[in-house]
């Protein structure tokens, strides 16, 4: 039973990571109806930003600033840089294609994903960069219930993930910006006619979504310790699965999907075999797509004439 709970806890932790990436993905899909394949690579960029922040402040063993400050700088800087990068991508690559055939921005998105991955390879090399989190946040700083252990980094990931998700939900529901976002998602042309600055709203959505991916990247660095240029692709696929399973375009769906995928993955790894994890998760996605293409919480889309 302890094993079961340990796997469940691990699943929730990884799941909240996926949920964060899936949220940004789903937001962008909501306003632009575009599958942003480059989203996973923004997560990779965020993870690298976190790594270089640690290096700038003396490396993991000889930090020159207190750990909470370091973490704050890592998260904020990663969010700002990836958010800016997301806005730049939207401005440069997606905006000229708004009225192009549907297939065009998808192909561009694949190109951007490939470009970012290889740009990171050029800049940072192919070797793994290691965060060495235990050197500045010791494993012993967590707590354990029975034989289920949770360390401080994991608690932080879950709490921060939760805070961000609730914050985002409040933003989308309560603020004027959120209302405008929902309006653009519902009907871009009508929103434009009502005087909403559609370009600004889309840019803001890209900023928020990409920033979430950047934060998730730093979390992944802290959790898994290893960063390299290819982590974005697989994480992107997982988040993609999460968003689709939950219902693409739906924010609660993305959170639910992320948690489900994380837990499923954790149990498959724990009880069956880690070699088949990806295969089963991908198979799961295909089945969900075929049985219920709109996902668990999504609405059925009708084809407009």
């Amino acid at each position, binding site marked *: 039973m302890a094993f079961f709970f340990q796997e469940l806890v691990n699943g929730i932790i990884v799941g909240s990571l996926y949920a964060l990436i899936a949220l940004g993905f789903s937001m962008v899909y909501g306003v632009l*109806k575009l*599958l942003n394949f480059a989203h996973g690579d923004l997560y990779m960029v965020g993870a690298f930003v976190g790594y270089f922040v640690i290096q700038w402040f003396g490396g993991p063993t000889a930090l020159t600033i207190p750990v909470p400050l370091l973490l704050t700088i890592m998260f904020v800087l990663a969010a700002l840089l990836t958010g800016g990068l997301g806005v*730049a991508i939207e*401005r*440069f*690559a997606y905006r*000229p*294609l708004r*009225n*192009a*055939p*549907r*297939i*065009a*921005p*998808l*192909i*561009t998105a*694949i*190109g*951007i*994903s*490939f*470009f*970012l*991955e*290889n*740009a990171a*390879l*050029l*800049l940072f090399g192919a070797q793994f960069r290691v965060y060495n989190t235990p050197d500045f946040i010791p494993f012993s700083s967590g707590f354990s219930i029975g034989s289920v252990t949770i360390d401080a980094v994991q608690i932080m990931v879950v709490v921060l993930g939760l805070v961000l998700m609730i914050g985002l939900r409040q933003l989308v529901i309560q603020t004027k910006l959120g209302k405008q976002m929902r309006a653009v998602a519902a009907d871009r042309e009508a929103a434009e006619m009502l005087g909403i600055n559609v370009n600004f709203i889309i840019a803001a959505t890209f900023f928020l979504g990409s920033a979430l991916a950047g934060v998730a990247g730093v979390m992944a660095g802290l959790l898994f310790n290893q960063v390299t240029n290819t982590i974005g*692709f697989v994480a992107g*696929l997982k988040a*993609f*699965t999460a968003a*689709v399973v939950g219902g693409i375009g739906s924010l609660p769906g993305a959170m639910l999907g992320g948690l489900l995928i994380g837990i499923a993955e954790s149990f498959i790894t724990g009880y069956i075999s880690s*070699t*088949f994890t*990806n*295969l089963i998760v*991908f*198979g799961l*996605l*295909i089945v969900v*797509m*075929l049985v219920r*293409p709109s996902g668990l919480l999504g609405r059925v889309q009708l*084809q*407009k*004439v």
Partner: protein
Amino acid sequence: MAAAVAGLVLPLLGLGGFQLQVAIDALVIALLAVGLNIVVGWAGLLDLGYVAFFGFGAYGYALLSSGQIGKQGIHLPSILSLPIVMIGAAVLGLMVGWPSRRLIGDYLAIVTLFFGEAFVEFTNNVAPKTLGGPNGVISIDAIRSFGYQFVSNESYYYLLVVVLVATMAVLRLLDTSRTGRAWRAVREDSLAAAAMTIPVNRVKLMAFAFGAMVAALAGTIFAAQQISVFPTDFDTPILILVYAGLILGGAGSIAGACTGALVVMVIYDGLLRSPAESGYLFYGLVLLTLVAKLRPWRRLAIVLAATAALGFAAHAVVGAISQRAVAGGPQSGGWVAAALRDWVIVPANPAVPGNWGFVLLVCLLIALVQLKGNWRTVLLVPTVYLAACVWEARLVVEYAVTAQLMIGAILIVMMIARPQGLLGARRVEAPT
């Protein structure tokens, strides 16, 4: 016709072993692009799992023509195994297409993308005794029929040329047939097509099956020529390569798909590996773009003169401040590099400054697209100069990464600047 003649003559001109291998790879990718054109270009279905059919063909042929299954292994003659594999791929195409036929647009892209990823995971992890896991299948038989064995690379080259030309001819007939017109009708507006009594689902499935068959055919020849297959041969980079070829040449045009793929592969595999040739390629492309985009010619002359002047001035100034900052010299070879020695700034240890230069270059390029009018011309001068410096300092050295970056850039730039590709016809589509 011209392509066939050129194809027959090429090896007679005495290509070396390396060039011949590049030519063979290019032909395989061209065959794939021509097949992908059916699905993406004609039927308008974004199939991101296309490479899985290529892999299916290669693995299918490998299992039927090697010692992998059973004690003795199966060594079918190619006259049997090729049709079996191709029909199997067509059935697989139907199986992937059948459940996803209701899915429109993005959803189809998702399912096929995951199908492609699942294929790689499958070959990597399932049945390691038979499929070999990451070690793949090795010692595959050559293609043989009627007592003739295709062993040498020359023979595979000719085989590929013949197969490519034959496939293009068949597809040419298909394009002008009733089915071809139905595909394009479905691409433009599937609802309207359905209203015109076109069986939309069946037409889509046919596109999937035909595309899968061509991909599997390419896979069999690939497996036989390589003598071994590995899961990584069928991963996303190949998919993106095929897409880049198709998009560059022009989706919807057979000649475009073939030409685009050949051009992409020759640059990707061949030219970028040699420092001198990659230099000619890079400066040639920059000049060509400037000549094509800058009108009137006075503006072009001013930009070129200003770039040259900026380079010499910057080199002189930086060299006066620190000798080490210009000590690297151009990393490419040939007379171009020799001529540019006193023009580009390449530090003694170019890796880190080159990286910063690369980031700055990407920022400048984005800014360049956003600007209009005279400011754009003004910014063009430092951008071209910086591009040359980054090229000499970093990109030439990391030619493999540069090749990948080029593939990504082709997809982005072509979709924005010229979505119909070099040879395609512009599609007029009402925005929905």
